């Protein structure tokens, strides 16, 4: 079986869906961050494949940017996580409901 663009895109879509489900279901902040990384990486796969398909480097460039941004996101996110953990001792997001209404 030849692996076509469609397969990559399906993979990308499936990964994205997994990411989405993770985002919705995870209560652990760290896992939640993972899920968002999966989202971005799903996109990366898509971009890489499409760039190859179009024979155009722009997509790959986009993917690189996404990787960079994902990395900085992780940096900021983990920073927040650490502070939060220091203050509360937990990384469960159900306790984060002091503001509502």
């Amino acid at each position, binding site marked *: 079986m030849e692996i076509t663009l469609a397969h990559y895109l399906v993979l990308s879509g499936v990964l994205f869906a997994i990411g989405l489900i993770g985002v919705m279901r995870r209560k652990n902040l760290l896992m*939640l961050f993972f899920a*968002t990384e999966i989202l971005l990486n*799903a996109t990366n796969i898509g971009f890489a494949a499409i760039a190859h398909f179009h024979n155009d480097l*722009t997509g790959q460039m986009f993917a690189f940017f996404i990787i960079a941004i994902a990395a900085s996101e992780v940096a900021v996110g983990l920073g927040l996580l650490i502070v939060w953990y220091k203050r509360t001792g937990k990384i469960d*997001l159900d306790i984060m409901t002091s503001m509502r*209404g």
Partner: protein
Amino acid sequence: MLEPINVSLASLNIATLAPMLIAIVGALSILCIDMLKEGLHKSLYVMVSLLFLLLDLGVVIDFGNTFLKNGPVLGMFDMILMDGLAIMGQIIIVAGSMLFIPLALTSKRFHEYNYPEYFALFLFMIAGFQFMVATDNLIMIFVGLETASLALYALIALHNRSKSFEAAVKYFTMGALAAGFFAFGSMILYAITGAIEINQIASVLAADRYADIGYVLVAVSFLLAAFGFKLSMVPFHTWTPDVYEGSTAALAGYMSIVPKIAGFIVAMRLFEFLVHSGVVWLQVILYVAVVVTMTASNIWAMVQTDVKRMLAYSSISHAGFVMAAILIGTTQSNTALFLYWALFGFTNLGAFTMLWVSRQKNLLPGQSSDHAFEKFSGLIKTMPMAAIMMGLFMLSLAGIPPFGLFWGKIYVIASAVSGGYTVLALIMALNSALAAYYYLKLIVYMFMKEPIVGYEKHYLTNASLSLKTIVGIAAIGTIFAVVAVNPLLNVITLFVYNSGY
């Protein structure tokens, strides 16, 4: 072997980067100053930031002149696009930032202002927004967006209260999700068209006569979700009240203005060509989204007990109101968007500054939140001037003439009328009436209730001369807006029209 790449500096047009670079240089120089001498007073950082922003603004205005003479300027491999929208957007971003930065000069000490990093981040964020508006390349938009957002998360968290962290985490997580949406949407567009520049995407789609309409719509759905988050459209708005509540009033006010205008400009670039190409689906969706956002947030604002949360919902509603301009998509409506936002900026600056001024360090006994309505009861008796100022901003937000926002409001509604959206115009008008209720609620508290004994000495403790000046500027801008409307209208129309919107 690879061909030698021959790029002349002139064609690079590095000058187009100047505005953002100024902001970035400003940020770096603040960090350098700190390295050279620690423990400097925050006023220094504020002034340095202001200086750099002033430069920034000057350069942007200079671009404005060039634009009016020669049309849009491209630069950096066409990554940077200095058209009318970009220039208007940057003016609002930079000028807005300049008005908000001095809010750091409070009389109470808030520790984040002692960090030079705060100001550096602030300037980075501004650069990010500038990148975002000054391009039609999806990568650049993405990078700008994320630069700004990540800086903003950090700024919120720097306030160092548990609510701020909570707000930052919420904002961050949702922001990450939205980033995913944006990336995925861009990917689909890229898949269909092979381009990541909006105008190229548009021309490819037009050439195909929207053959892959289904994929386009899926892509648009993702992008709508992403910008729905940024512009806090219902149901992507849920972060707004919490983040506003968790951050300082100064930052909340800032968030209600500057990031939104950046978002609007991108939304204009992204969606208007689709609306114009007769994508009925998008028209319907935008219509519904506009109406729901305006109405629902107004209704929710009514039941708030905290002024800042109320203002958060109010700014959601205003965003929905302005989103209508994108739906209408005429030159008049796009002009109205900028006019509205400029006037809204002044008014919200005033309103949030008043909150900021009345911020105390700790909650008083019996006080449910930082800016509970009760806190303001009878303000006219204890501090008449403050009450009148706050009342003025509330009236302006409610769209009572002749205060600032009224002129924006009629221009937006007029554009709806002339764009053929009669019912929408009516809904927008009636929503103003809904909104009047909650603005009035604060006025009722301030002007018609008795003051709570013992509270008054805690009011206005955060006031300093600079804050008062800012309030004064906002008030003058709000009251005498009518004088500014005509020149603003002329200039904005010129910029918008010449950019082809």
